[in-house]
């Protein structure tokens, strides 16, 4: 199958074939990462701009590493050190970057839809590295890759996403991607952090973590942001941990093995018990490694669809 998309904006609406192609391509790049010299010349002469309007350490590092492993040229931009502070608009920022003859733009932005907006302004390919509460497609892909590794399949897998669903771009990309690949998804979290009409996604919803654990093959545990408590969306971190914190005791009570994912960074002792995050159940560090492979695959496929790989 040929990859025909110009941008990667969201997993919603992508076909099973497209997702499978990305995941299969990521497997080959994962092998590259295991080599003594983990670098290929694939994207030589391709320039990628990493445009981060929101603080991010791991996603940004992961993209940069992926670009370097593919021999792309890269420039990085973060809002804290940019003209955005002087009032420049997103469109002007983007057009300036493009005028520097960039082929691809990786964007992280606090506003949902910012990558869509950029994709309408630019000739370059746009990769969404997280937009507000909307989607984080490469995170969804790396989670799927990690689960596929662990279980050998996604079809029929039962995945519970636990925590602040309403504000989570990770949850949205995960549920769209997983459902397209034939997995079942359950959302679990306090009612105040569950978006309205979430059932219309075709997923089950529960506010009972034990029920979710009893059902699931894997738990994708989301980070709880402390400012949500300040906004009155739950009473205290203590109460959150008591109701929705994933603990070894809860897993033992369920009497089964459950794989635990977390997009990081972890609030140890809030959404997950500290030692559980480092336990045999956790695949959190696999997620990090797979993140580089998935981003290499996405860059590679989009560059091919753009024609940037011709002659390379």
């Amino acid at each position, binding site marked *: 199958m040929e990859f025909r998309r110009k941008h990667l904006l969201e997993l*919603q609406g992508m076909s099973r074939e497209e997702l499978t192609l990305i995941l299969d391509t990521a497997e080959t790049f994962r092998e590259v990462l295991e080599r003594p010299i983990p670098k290929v010349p694939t994207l030589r002469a391709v320039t990628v701009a990493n445009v981060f309007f929101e603080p991010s350490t791991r996603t940004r590092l992961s993209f940069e590493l992926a670009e370097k492993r593919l021999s792309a040229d890269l420039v990085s931009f973060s809002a804290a050190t940019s003209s955005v502070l002087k009032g420049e*608009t*997103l*469109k002007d920022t983007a057009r300036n970057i493009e005028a520097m003859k960039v082929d691809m733009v990786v964007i992280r*932005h*606090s*506003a*949902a*839809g*910012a990558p*869509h*907006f950029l994709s309408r302004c630019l000739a370059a390919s746009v990769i969404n590295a997280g*937009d*507000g*509460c*909307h*989607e984080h497609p490469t995170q969804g892909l790396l989670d799927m890759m990690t689960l596929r590794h662990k279980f050998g399949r996604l079809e029929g897998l039962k995945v519970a996403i636990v925590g602040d669903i*309403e*504000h989570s*771009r990770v949850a*949205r990309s995960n549920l769209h991607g997983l459902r397209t690949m034939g997995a079942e998804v359950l959302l679990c979290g306090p009612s105040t952090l569950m*978006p*309205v*009409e*979430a059932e*219309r*996604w075709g997923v089950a919803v529960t506010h009972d973590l034990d029920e979710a654990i009893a059902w699931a093959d894997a738990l994708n545990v989301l980070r709880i942001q402390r400012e949500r408590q300040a906004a009155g969306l739950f009473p205290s971190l203590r109460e959150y941990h008591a109701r929705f914190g994933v603990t070894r005791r809860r897993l033992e009570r369920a009497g089964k093995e459950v794989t635990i994912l977390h997009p990081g960074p972890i609030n140890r002792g809030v959404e997950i018990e500290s030692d559980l995050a480092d336990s045999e159940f956790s695949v959190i560090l696999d997620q990090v490694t797979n993140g580089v492979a998935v981003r290499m695959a996405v860059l590679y496929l989009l560059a091919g669809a753009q024609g940037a790989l011709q002659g390379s």
Partner: protein
Amino acid sequence: MNQPKPAQKVLFKGGSLLDLDTGKETPEDILIVDGRIAELGKVEIASFDGEVIDVSGAVVVPGLMDMHVHLREPGREDEETVETGCRAAMAGGFTAVCPMPNTEPPADKREVLDFLKERAAGQLVELFPIAAVSKGRKGEEIAEMGELVEAGAVAFSDDGDPVHNAAVMRRALEYASMFGRPVIDHCQELTLSAGGVMNEGFVSTNLGLPGMPAIAEEIMVARDLFLAKYTGGKLHIAHVSTAGAVELIRRARAEGVQVTCEVTPHHLTLTDEAVVGFDTNTKMNPPLRTAADVEALRAGLRDGTIQVIASDHAPHAIEEKEVECAAAPFGIIGLETSLGLVLRELVDGKVLSLAQALRAMTVGPRAALGLEQVKIAKGAMANLSFIDPRAEWVVDRSRLHSKCRNTPFHGWKLRGLVLALCNKGLFWCAGG
């Protein structure tokens, strides 16, 4: 756009008078002399020495009125002025508009209304300004309503914002009732809608955009209806957008509460599905709601619960709208697409008859504001819109007369061409 000319001796030939009560169309030529209707009926042109305007195919109705527009002057003349707003109004078939007071400075003092009147002098389009409910639109103390009425205010509103303080709203309804003027409220319970950029529902859930729930509007509508009932004041609800609000208003009217309301063409046409793709031209306040809400709004118009269609014409500069959704201002322009959308969606869509639809754009707003109705009779001052309801046209945002381009209807095929207008002793015809 060609300029209006003095209507010293003009014959509009070939149109049909549309009776807005019965829907009956009667072919009549209309002779205007010095701005007044001198003759209605068959007028021979063999020896006629005035100007003859061919309005064949047109229905003739009282001049259309848009009771909810933002003309941005004073303060944001880069976005719209009284002059450009009047041009857009003429292109849209209107002979009267009511500019909202959320200008800079706000229309909370006589001087601002005097300034607006001065700017509108010589225009064919008549300005009926709406003044602020509260001083500085701060929602704390009611404005000097008596003086504002003397200066020409036809109603009071802090539109753009609700009158959030219930005691201020109570006093406003009580005080404005001395002058027989309505208080127009932008109904929104701000603690429930805070941060929202679209309707709260499955679409906002899916897009990850913060939502404004329907109950934020409905709670405020309910509060205002209680206050109107208690005070006996005249209440007008601006841009109703939810099924629940329509039902609340329907029940209150049945109980005899003095309440009228309006709906915009975009809330009658689009749903929150239009926000998919994150086009900021779909960001408005109140937000686009669900298909069930659209259906309820249409039903409300049909049964008379909603009497007025108003555009909420809200021009915004391109650079302000060409940003990510969260940063964009609310609102779209509407003066030039209002009639076309109404004819396409409501008349072609068999929701309303042509007469019912045009009633909501002529008789409805004047009744809501307590203004004298326009008469089409021999001897009356001519205030007329000549509309060909069957003609089709395609919206091209680059050819609109508003200073701004923020419309989600670019490329839409609409129904209804404005052939000519007559008002204030002036006439204008689209053909030159």
